[in-house]
């Protein structure tokens, strides 16, 4: 595999970039592996990468039912931030942001991490109080987050409408300057390429149908659409389909899967300098490097695996966008799609062992797990390798639903 460098880019320019080799192999599944990751999204591919790179496992497979990055990894609005409320959340999301900052160098692959600032708007007294609480809690945890007045919000994001005449006027905002966006596909591809180089087999078009145990109750193998694979370690990283996969091991999960939608507009010249989120009016917006406005909407109210949400949900978000940014009113939307997000009761993820030895699960990232991709993969790999949850991952164990130690970011109103 060729390393990306200025020299190699220049050299390949002479052949119109037609002589680049394939970036990862397309291997046949082997009869057995030391560890198998189910789900080829960013979290699964990243887990395989760190297992191989930092824990010396050599025979690893990532098994993906479709194509890598075709799940939520390739469907999200790519907002990255770490200004969550609770210590445990600050732990895992900040770990992730620190990895984002060096990820392109780490992978020798440009993931286009762009820390352009994430501004979270407040529209009522409760929002203001809750935002302030976040700002102070984050500072105690060493996470940057600052409060801006409406005028300061406008200076930071000139397209923003801060007039008093709208239904939910902007009363200020919490800004995380280190927050931003990254290129979603590049995250999946960069980890895939890096993992492949370390010998990981990435097996696409391969659905896991069953997870088996031996007489002692330990994981012994998986049945797939491309044959049987023996393994003693399985990590399930299947996002919206985690309940379905875990049921194939005979286990139930504390999850519900909902459709979440996003839209992009026609491409325009650079106009939008940052990321703006409003949990109150349900609007999430940034501009991609191609020029499209990238807009995130809300979830439907019912469980669904349809990968499409109701049109009224998207329309509701566009109404909010038009009110906050009136100059976008006449723009056309080019595409609208949905992903299936796995939500927990407290809206915090699950990284955990299970009642089956050798079976680990990383899920529950719901509407906001893209930002966590490197951090989640990194600590989940360590947990799988050592058969002991990494300290950053430990609070997110399944045990919390039984002990009552929830990490209640739901009450803290997170999304994306």
């Amino acid at each position, binding site marked *: 595999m060729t390393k990306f460098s200025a020299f190699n880019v220049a050299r390949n320019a002479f052949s119109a970039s037609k002589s680049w080799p394939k970036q990862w192999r397309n291997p046949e599944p082997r009869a057995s592996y030391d560890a198998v990751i189910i789900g080829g999204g960013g979290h699964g591919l990243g887990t395989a990468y760190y297992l191989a790179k930092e824990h010396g496992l050599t025979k690893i497979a990532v098994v993906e039912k479709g194509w890598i990055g075709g799940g939520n990894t390739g469907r999200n609005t790519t907002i990255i931030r770490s200004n969550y409320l609770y210590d445990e959340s600050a732990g895992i999301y900040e770990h992730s942001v620190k990895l984002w900052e060096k990820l392109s160098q780490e992978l020798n692959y440009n993931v286009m991490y762009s820390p352009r600032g994430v501004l979270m708007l407040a529209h009522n007294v409760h929002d203001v109080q809750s935002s302030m609480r976040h700002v102070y809690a984050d500072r105690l945890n060493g996470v940057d987050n600052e409060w801006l007045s409406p005028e300061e919000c406008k200076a930071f994001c000139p397209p923003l409408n801060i007039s008093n005449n709208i239904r939910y006027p902007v009363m200020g905002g919490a800004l995380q300057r280190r927050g931003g966006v990254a290129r979603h596909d590049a995250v999946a591809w960069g980890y895939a390429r890096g993992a492949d180089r370390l010998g990981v087999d990435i097996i696409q078009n391969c659905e896991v149908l069953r997870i088996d145990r031996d007489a002692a109750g330990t994981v012994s193998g998986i049945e797939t659409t491309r044959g049987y694979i023996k393994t003693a370690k399985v990590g399930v990283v299947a996002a919206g389909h985690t309940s379905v996969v875990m*049921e194939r091991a005979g286990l139930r999960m*504390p999850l*519900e899967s909902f459709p979440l939608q996003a839209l992009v507009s026609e491409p325009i010249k650079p106009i939008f300098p940052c990321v703006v989120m409003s949990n109150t009016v349900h609007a999430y917006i940034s501009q991609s490097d191609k020029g499209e406005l990238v807009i995130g909407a809300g979830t439907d109210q019912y*469980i669904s695996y349809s990968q499409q949400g109701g049109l009224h949900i998207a329309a509701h978000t566009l109404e909010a966008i038009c009110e906050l940014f009136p100059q976008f009113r006449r723009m056309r939307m080019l595409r609208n799609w949905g992903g299936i997000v796995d939500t927990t009761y407290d809206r915090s993820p699950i990284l955990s062992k*299970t*009642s089956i030895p050798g079976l680990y699960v990383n899920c529950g990232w719901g509407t906001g797990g893209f930002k966590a991709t490197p951090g989640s993969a990194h600590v989940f790999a360590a947990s799988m390798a050592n058969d002991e949850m990494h300290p950053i991952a430990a609070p997110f164990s*399944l*045990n919390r*639903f039984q002990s009552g130690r929830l990490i209640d970011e739901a009450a803290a109103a997170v999304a994306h």
Partner: protein
Amino acid sequence: MLLIKCPHCGERPEIEFHCGGEAHIARPLDPSQLDDVQWAELLFYRANTKGVMAERWNHLHGCQRWFNALRNTVSDKILRTYMMGEPRPYIGGEAQGAATGTLSYPAPGERSK
């Protein structure tokens, strides 16, 4: 947007309704007898079915009454709505009985009391 047939009022658009999640979850007869694992199951564990599922709906901006619906979560098609208290009807082809499987927790050696 779904078109939902309230058994009391007839077909109405989804925005009149609130979805209450999985139906037919039996409440404990004697809550004080439940241990932590049973509470976890009651409060947090859900079937999250891919396929035909029974769920509760409330006609919030209409008659405000609760009822149940069978809906296919792959196509989102509502197959039938029925009254609260009625048993779950089974329609040809689908698996019968409650979702199988044990809880994914507690992990061995980590069971807290």
